[in-house]
């Protein structure tokens, strides 16, 4: 980006965040996670490990907080008395929210993390120098750092044969994160291009959405008004953009919310609140 370029396109680069900022989006991929259907079975997490070449770090490193689970199922209890109450557990699958106004992007010293035209918050692994600034700036704590060269012991022969060739195996000193299975998006785009059509809803299914036994996770393009995801966003009166949502709070049917919406980071994941039949 030269200085001349900035002068010529000044109004374009100064565009409001509500108009998409300076991004020209082809797609804006988003997700909906229905916490009412989620059973906390962890199959999304397992699928993510298999799809994205995630290293299994072992118990000791896990306790140090060096786990590499891009998708983790967080547990919360309504009943706060006692350590593990018998009822009142809530599960919240937490993955990278692929924020539209991501806090991790502007702090990267080498521009290894950036916004793709698909609305994804992508990480270029071979560009990353491992400053870990992005991870410290992420309010969701969903960026994971390779403290070790895990490939040496995480996939002993013949387990290395299960590695996904569409995604590189990250080495020591590199930050990594969920990118909504960008390799599947790429494959679907190539397929659509080959068949000379535009991408339709359901062409891309992320590994977690595919593995979810109850169908709690719905993935799709929020820019496409006919996709399942954008219909859910519309139904629950949540819209894209980094500003606080105005929704009908009296209607109990509307239970959509985005985590840390007040930070104005424009997360791409819509969570649907859990409904309780009884008081815990």
């Amino acid at each position, binding site marked *: 980006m030269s200085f001349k370029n900035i002068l010529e396109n000044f109004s374009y680069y100064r565009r409001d965040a509500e108009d998409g900022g300076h991004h020209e989006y082809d797609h804006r991929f988003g997700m909906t996670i229905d916490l009412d259907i989620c059973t906390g079975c962890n199959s999304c997490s397992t699928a993510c490990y298999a799809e994205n070449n995630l290293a299994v770090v072992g118990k000791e490193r896990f306790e140090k907080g060096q786990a590499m689970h891009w998708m983790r199922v967080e547990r919360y209890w309504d009943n706060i008395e006692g350590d593990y109450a018998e009822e009142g557990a809530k599960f919240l699958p937490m993955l990278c929210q692929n924020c539209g106004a991501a806090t991790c992007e502007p702090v990267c010293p080498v521009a290894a993390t950036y916004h793709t035209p698909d609305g994804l918050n992508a990480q270029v692994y071979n*560009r990353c120098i491992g400053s870990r600034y992005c991870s410290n700036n992420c309010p969701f704590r969903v960026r994971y750092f390779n403290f070790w060269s895990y490939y040496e012991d995480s996939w002993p022969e013949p387990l290395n044969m299960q590695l996904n060739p569409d995604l*590189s195996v990250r080495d020591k000193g590199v930050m990594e994160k969920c*990118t909504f299975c960008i390799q599947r998006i790429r494959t679907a785009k190539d397929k659509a*291009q080959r068949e000379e059509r535009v991408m339709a809803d359901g062409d891309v299914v992320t590994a977690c959405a595919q593995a979810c036994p109850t169908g709690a996770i719905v993935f799709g393009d929020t820019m496409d008004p006919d996709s399942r995801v954008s219909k859910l966003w519309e139904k629950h009166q949540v819209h894209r953009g980094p500003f606080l949502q105005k929704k009908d709070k009296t209607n109990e049917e509307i239970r959509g919310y985005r985590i840390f919406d007040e930070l104005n980071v424009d997360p791409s994941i819509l969570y649907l609140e859990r409904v309780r039949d009884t008081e815990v």
Partner: protein
Amino acid sequence: MQVERRTLLRKLVCSLRGRMRMKTVTIKQLLSFSVLAFVVSILPAKSYAELPVPAHITPPVGEHESPIVPQPIEFPHDRHVNDMKINCMYCHTYARRSKVAGIPPTSKCMGCHKVIATDKPRIQQLTEYWEKGESPKWLKVHDVPDYVHFTHEKHIRKFVFDEKFPVEDVQQVCGLCHGEVRGMTVAEKKKPLNMGFCQRCHEANGGPGDCWACHK
């Protein structure tokens, strides 16, 4: 008659080596050999015209020198491409269908070489592999790092099929990244195939500039 300087030199050296082993070489012969070798080495390197660049492509710029890879069989590309006029995509048939161009299976070689040139030592070597039911362990020459996503299919579609470029001239397009394969025996890496090489061509020909279009 087409003259390939390197092949001639190799033949000369081989025959000299054979005579020296038989201890029948004389000073006179040695002298005539060196004179012959000198004459051969000043012959023009190739007797065919340079590959033309297709009009719709701004070619990528860059040169690369690398040692010749020791392949299990010294496969003569020049003989197949130049003399026999076989299309690149007859053997590398996956180039137009998938990410990788593909090495042909031994059965494809045997399709012709069951009957053609069966007296040549390289073909006999190939027949040995075929009869044992093994494939020659070809070594990869044009290799990009693991973090690079490259698709032959998309490039062939853009530069050949979308432009209605005649498929029989496809080596002009392949040659932009693979060099003049018709002048080589085993394939050699003649272009750098690094990020600058790709990026300059993408800028000149309107390819994607997004990091994740090529990195993974």
